[in-house]
């Protein structure tokens, strides 16, 4: 039963990650992405997915999808009904599932974050309804498959498990919130294992939306650089398999890292602009540290939300300065949006997997194009490839509407 809740455990169980899957413009899977992030490779190119000839900005980080998907339990009809977003989601989920070595299960929760779900179906529906109104073909399929819960069901069917689906759409914090919510489900005893992640595909409407706001960089996306002039959009997905430490050890599973802290709250300042002083950012970083039982001095790397917009980065910088205190001067910070763009609902999940990579492989992801620090930044921005010891990483995500989320991950050694 979802309610009454199972009694809260006397002590919340430790939550570990035993599977991680990632799809970005850097490539499909952990290996390609780790190599790309480690080198600070930038994956932007002219947009080919839709017409941008009349847009102000014409580049984004597009994913090259395989022509044929690896074998799953999806049938031919289901495969035909996967759009880009659904395909990236299934690819990431499959990689995580295989890495975790999980088998078909009942009542295994799936928690996903997305802002657009199957919006590409929605766009196609709209165009046909408006321009070819008498043509009915595929409209019913589009009306069903634009809904994210239907894409989530594809994950269940592809991997052969069943369980409750929760879709969080807290804008660009969605992916972090999904993983954080999954962490809470395990910590409060509602589940022993959860699949969680986030995804979003590039679409014409969303691209146009950010372009209309003049939020897209017409030059180069450079988070926290004094010369920054906007964000770049990307697309992708990431999925993690979370389970109690006891469950992982019982199975003899390889543990990729531990999720130790989560904080989330809402900033009522403005629909699209963060509070200038980063009040809520500060709150969620403190919450996450409190739940992890650590101090800012114990964080070895901070993966910032760092969109590259003037307002976001200055607000986040002020919050980091205040939260980190004296540690700020030596705390390595970077935003991997400089490499793959802003993945919106997928951003938080992808960046959590990037943090896992840094913990597993002991390097920091640089922002290669970063040159001139914004005066607000009292912390060093990682701008060249760097191997170093990383035991604890923190990831920030903030969304339109003001929901902020922070995750803390610990190295498993």
């Amino acid at each position, binding site marked *: 039963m979802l309610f009454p809740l199972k009694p809260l455990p006397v002590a919340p169980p430790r939550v570990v990650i035993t599977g991680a899957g990632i799809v970005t413009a850097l490539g499909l899977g952990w290996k390609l992405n780790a190599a790309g992030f480690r080198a600070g490779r930038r994956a932007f190119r002219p947009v080919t997915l839709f017409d941008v000839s009349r847009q102000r900005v014409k580049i984004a980080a597009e994913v090259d999808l395989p022509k044929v998907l690896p074998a799953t339990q999806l049938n031919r009809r289901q495969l035909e009904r996967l759009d880009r977003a659904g395909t990236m989601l299934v690819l990431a989920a499959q990689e995580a599932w295989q890495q975790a070595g999980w088998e078909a299960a009942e009542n295994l929760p799936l928690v996903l974050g997305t802002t657009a779900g199957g919006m590409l179906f929605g766009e196609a529906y709209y*165009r046909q309804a*408006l321009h070819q109104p008498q043509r009915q073909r595929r409209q019913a399929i589009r009306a069903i498959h634009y809904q994210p819960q239907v894409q989530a069901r594809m994950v269940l069917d592809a991997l052969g498990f069943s369980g409750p689906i929760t*879709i969080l*759409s807290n804008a660009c914090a969605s992916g972090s919130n999904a993983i954080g919510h999954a962490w809470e489900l395990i910590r*409060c005893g509602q589940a022993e294992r959860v699949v969680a992640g986030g995804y979003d595909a590039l679409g014409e*409407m969303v691209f146009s939306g950010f372009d209309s706001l003049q939020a897209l960089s017409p030059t180069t996306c450079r988070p926290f650089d004094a010369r920054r002039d906007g964000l770049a959009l990307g697309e992708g997905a990431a999925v993690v398999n979370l389970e109690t430490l006891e469950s992982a050890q019982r199975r003899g599973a390889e543990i990729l890292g531990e999720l130790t802290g989560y904080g*989330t709250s809402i900033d009522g300042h403005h*629909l699209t602009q963060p509070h200038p002083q980063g009040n809520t950012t500060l709150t969620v970083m403190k919450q996450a540290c409190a739940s992890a039982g650590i101090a800012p001095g114990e964080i070895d790397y901070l993966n910032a939300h760092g969109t590259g917009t003037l307002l976001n980065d200055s607000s986040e910088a002020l919050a980091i300065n205040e939260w980190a205190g004296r540690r700020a001067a030596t705390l390595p910070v970077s935003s991997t949006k400089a490499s793959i763009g802003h993945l919106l609902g997928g951003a938080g999940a992808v960046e959590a997997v990037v943090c896992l990579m840094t913990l597993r492989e002991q390097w920091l992801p640089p922002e290669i194009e970063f040159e001139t620090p914004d005066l607000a930044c009292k912390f060093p921005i990682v701008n060249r490839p760097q191997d170093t010891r990383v035991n604890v990483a923190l990831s920030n995500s903030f969304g339109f509407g003001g*929901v902020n989320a922070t995750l803390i991950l610990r190295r498993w050694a």
Partner: protein
Amino acid sequence: MSKIFVAGLGAVSPAGWNVAALRDALDKGEPLPTQTVARPGWEKPLQARLVPNPPARPKFLTHPRLRRTSPVTHYAAAAALEAVAALRAHPAAKNFRLGIVVCLQSGCVQYSCRFYDETLKNPATASPMIFPETVYAAPTSHVAALLENVVLAYSLVGDPSAFLQGVALGAQWLEENRVDACLVIGAEETNWIIADALWHLDRPAIAAAGAGALCLCRDPKLSTGVELAAVTDAHTYSARQDRTQAAQAMRVQLGKNSSGELLCDGIGNSPRADAAERAAWSDWAGSRVSPKRILGEGLMAAAAWQCVAACDAVGSGKFSAASVSLVGSNQQAIGARFVRADFDISHLSAAATTGNIRP
């Protein structure tokens, strides 16, 4: 384990801008009149049940954050304010930490269509004012700004059954003492594209718009005399469990109901779409109310209306308990039961009876 109570209800529907209007419509039991919605490229318009204009411009629309918002935000805000009105007036709740969970299926479709239309015509002139209002999280953000003391907010997307996931999430936040009260809101707006999609998927259904809200709390003194007794598991549709089986599993989990109970079901006018839910409740001999028959297919708002009607019926004292059945369109089946709180509620004002009861 804390008990969870209902501290207030709110509703905006084709019947009007409060719970009383919803109750009156359900009491009368007659389907509300429909309005026409022009369908591009077609001579014959589609039918919908729209929310009537409010009798007076709601005061909350003067809030700076709500000036350019879309109808779904207006409905969510109105339902939210009605649901928290008693709580906000109570001295004990003055500094309450509030959580909100806003549940949506189609979300901000009016501005989405408008913005995409502008994009297709000429992206260089697409309005930056409209785009932020297209995101699912926009109503949540605006309601949080309006209520001010919100510390935790999620936007849940799913089929209408997700409303009860929202209720369970609110209960969890209360249980973990992360909030002192939690508003769970289901809201939708409609336009030609929603009516068009329904025409493709469920032809007898009439699209509707509005919102419903439940305010949950732990303190029985703040309750309306209604307690959340159960929310079943989410019985997800999959290759191994079809909609009929999921509905049956939900029904089994709700258990044997007593004769004095009310069933608030999600049955509309669609033999095909309603078949799974009808089968699951085929043995139900008690009283029953089907808000969608009266108000239309309000998607997530309709799920919220079912819960509001159930709580209103129990709070009024007419029923000792009410079950809510949500057999969603493409995600899952979930049920819930609300019961009369087992403490003295004589201090509560008697609510009017709820209706459209079909023994």
